[in-house]
């Protein structure tokens, strides 16, 4: 009989520490932890360098012969251009405060996912080539040669960071690891080293205005489904307009809300709210994407994609802009839009036509977050709400990284939820607001091929949801981000079955009492409201 291995032999995983230090240990590409490489046509569409077929697992990445020169020149240019980048390369004292704050490190246990070490992958090269001590002393001064293995390591780990900035909240120097990742990716893109999942939406957005590359007639006909559903639920036919010149407000939402579930229920909520207010607004089928995967690629690409929002606002002659529930769209608007494509002098400082509130915080970008807009309406008693219509939901709120840490929208969504729902429960303090855990799929990591990475990176978030599920019976995870709405259902389904995911304005739409509506028996998902079950048959 063949000799069977004993359990202790079976479970023994060979994890001998490498004989070499981390600097000299080549990266191992583990399946499920990285996304596919970009196909060439996506890069060609936006005139990005080095389009070719390649796979990260290939030995040969088909790089230009002078790749090293390109990378070092790229670093040099950015060190001169961004004072923050040079500062972040110089000032880390390796105190380790960030190490256990990264959900990818918490979930994977891979030391190179500690923010300090992720940055060190690039810092070591910075020291070697851009500091006097590193040039002279090399390794002794913490410098290392830029080799192909180092480049591959950059690609592997800069695409395992969701640019969530949780680490920067805890860094005593305020080093923004997200910016290091962004610049790392930007440099990699000089060699055509992007992921398919990011480059595809970028190319589509560039050509057609949205991630899926959908054209105006498709967008419009998709809205008809939602309009029909709203009519079935409320008896009211809302009439959204598209590309309407002379409207007061341009509304820009993530395209995920137009096509993907559960985002479409959020989209229905937007339309119901605007209809009830009689708001003079229009959608644009060209600026049909609030999301900006360009910002996961390079500053320049982010700027190119962002441009369409102001261009459309100008073309349509609107006065100001409302933005929907999107995460990184707001990071872009809040941090970059004004200097990229502003100032938008042709627009007016946003003033709510319903409450008269002047949104001073948006006086430069002229763009108001819908949570701010709605919270203001509720504060002024302008909405009739029946929160009992959400009584079948026990809600908790996931702060999206970008809106919480990227722009400080913390209280408006909570204020709205408390007004439209009777059952709201916070997750533990260390896991919400500025310290919120990432969904594990941000910054273009929400592909299918890296599902293991996403499940591991999202585990700390899911774990906190599980806690409120166990203690309060929470069954709905609300959020204000389209990537959350795409990625969190998967995360919940794996780790915390029984918890569903909803955008904030889906909950608003459920609670909103509209003039002339019929008695509601269904929520926006066309599911029977518990107490109204079978009411129509009585």
């Amino acid at each position, binding site marked *: 009989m063949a000799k069977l291995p004993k*359990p202790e032999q079976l479970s023994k995983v060979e994890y001998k520490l490498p004989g070499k230090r981390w600097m000299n240990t080549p990266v191992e590409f583990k399946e499920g932890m990285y996304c596919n490489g970009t196909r060439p046509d996506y890069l060609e569409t936006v005139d990005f360098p080095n389009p070719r077929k390649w796979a990260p697992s290939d030995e040969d990445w088909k790089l230009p012969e002078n790749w090293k020169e390109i990378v070092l020149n790229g670093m040099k240019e950015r060190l001169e251009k961004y004072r923050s980048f040079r500062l972040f390369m110089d000032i880390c004292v390796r105190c380790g405060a960030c190490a256990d704050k990264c959900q990818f490190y918490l979930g994977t246990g891979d030391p190179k996912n500690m923010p300090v070490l992720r940055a060190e992958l690039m810092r070591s090269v910075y020291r070697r080539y851009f500091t006097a001590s590193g040039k002279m002393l090399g390794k002794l001064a913490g410098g290392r040669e830029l080799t192909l293995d180092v480049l591959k390591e950059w690609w592997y780990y800069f695409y395992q960071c969701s640019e969530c900035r949780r680490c920067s909240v805890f860094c005593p120097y305020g080093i923004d690891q997200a910016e290091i990742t962004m610049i790392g990716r930007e440099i990699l893109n000089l060699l055509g080293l992007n992921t398919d999942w990011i480059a595809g939406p970028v190319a589509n957005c560039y050509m057609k205005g949205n991630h899926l590359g959908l054209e105006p007639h498709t967008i419009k006909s998709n809205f008809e489904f939602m309009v029909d559903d709203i009519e079935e639920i409320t008896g009211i036919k809302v009439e959204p307009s598209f590309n309407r010149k002379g409207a007061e407000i341009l509304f820009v939402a993530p395209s995920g809300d137009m096509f*993907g579930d559960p985002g479409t229920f959020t989209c229905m909520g937007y339309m119901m709210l605007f209809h009830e207010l009689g708001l003079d607004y229009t959608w644009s089928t060209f600026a049909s994407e609030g999301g900006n995967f360009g910002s996961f690629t390079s500053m320049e690409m982010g700027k190119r994609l962002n441009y369409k929002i102001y261009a459309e606002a100008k073309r349509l002659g609107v006065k100001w802009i409302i933005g929907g529930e999107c995460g990184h769209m707001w990071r872009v608007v809040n941090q970059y839009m004004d200097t990229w494509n502003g100032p938008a002098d042709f627009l007016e400082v946003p003033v709510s036509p319903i409450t008269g509130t002047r949104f001073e915080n948006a006086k430069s970008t002229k763009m108001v977050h819908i949570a701010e807009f709605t919270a203001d309406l509720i504060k002024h008693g302008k909405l009739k709400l029946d929160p009992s219509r959400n009584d079948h939901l026990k809600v908790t709120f996931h702060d999206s990284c970008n809106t919480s840490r990227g722009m400080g929208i913390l209280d408006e969504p909570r204020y709205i939820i408390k007004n439209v729902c009777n059952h709201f429960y916070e997750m533990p303090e260390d*896991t919400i607001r500025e310290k919120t855990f990432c969904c594990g799929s941000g910054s273009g990591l929400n592909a299918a091929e890296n599902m293991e990475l996403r499940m591991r990176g999202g585990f700390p978030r899911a774990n906190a949801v599980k806690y409120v599920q166990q203690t309060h019976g929470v069954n709905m995870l609300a959020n204000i981000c389209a990537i959350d709405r795409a990625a969190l259902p*998967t995360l919940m389904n794996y780790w915390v079955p029984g918890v569903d995911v909803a955008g904030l304005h889906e909950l608003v739409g459920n609670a909103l009492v509209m003039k002339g509506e019929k008695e509601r028996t269904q929520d926006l998902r066309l599911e029977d409201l518990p107490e109204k079950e079978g009411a129509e048959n009585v």
Partner: protein
Amino acid sequence: METKLKDILREKKPAILKRWFDVVMETYPAEAAGFYKGAKNRFTGPVGYTIHEGIDGLIDGLINEVPFEELSPLLDSIIKIRAVQKFSPSQAVAFIFHLKKIASEEVENVSSAHSAIDAATLSTFESKIDDLALTAFDLYMQAREKINELKVEEAKNMVYRLIQRQNQLYEMQGQGPKIETLNLK
């Protein structure tokens, strides 16, 4: 299970828990294991916490002969983690078998009681651990199948309205099949 064995196991539980946890941690790279072992806060060290709490509950459950259905969620919480950590199926579940060795060694160490626990009694306890291992394998398979199912579901959800629209067009043209009815799962 004999009361005497239960008493010994209860007395030895802290040692058994520590050894078993250490064995599970040994299946991780040294740096990760060090971190998981040190960080057992429920929210800021969820992997270490979940595994520790899970095996703690499993040991109690086995000693107190808790029905398997109640133990399954505890085991599931550990297996789900290991199912996305690049272990082979055998590596993911093998830690269960270690409990046999650890428990029997701890029982043997109680020298005065040693003679009192016969092999048959111990074997009954050990076969419960075998059952646990079989359950672990089922749970591992469920988790992996779930991951694959979720990939498909997510792809469908992202374009839900487009699929709906496509289906309506097919219906209008009297054509099939509907995309939803395609065997995507």
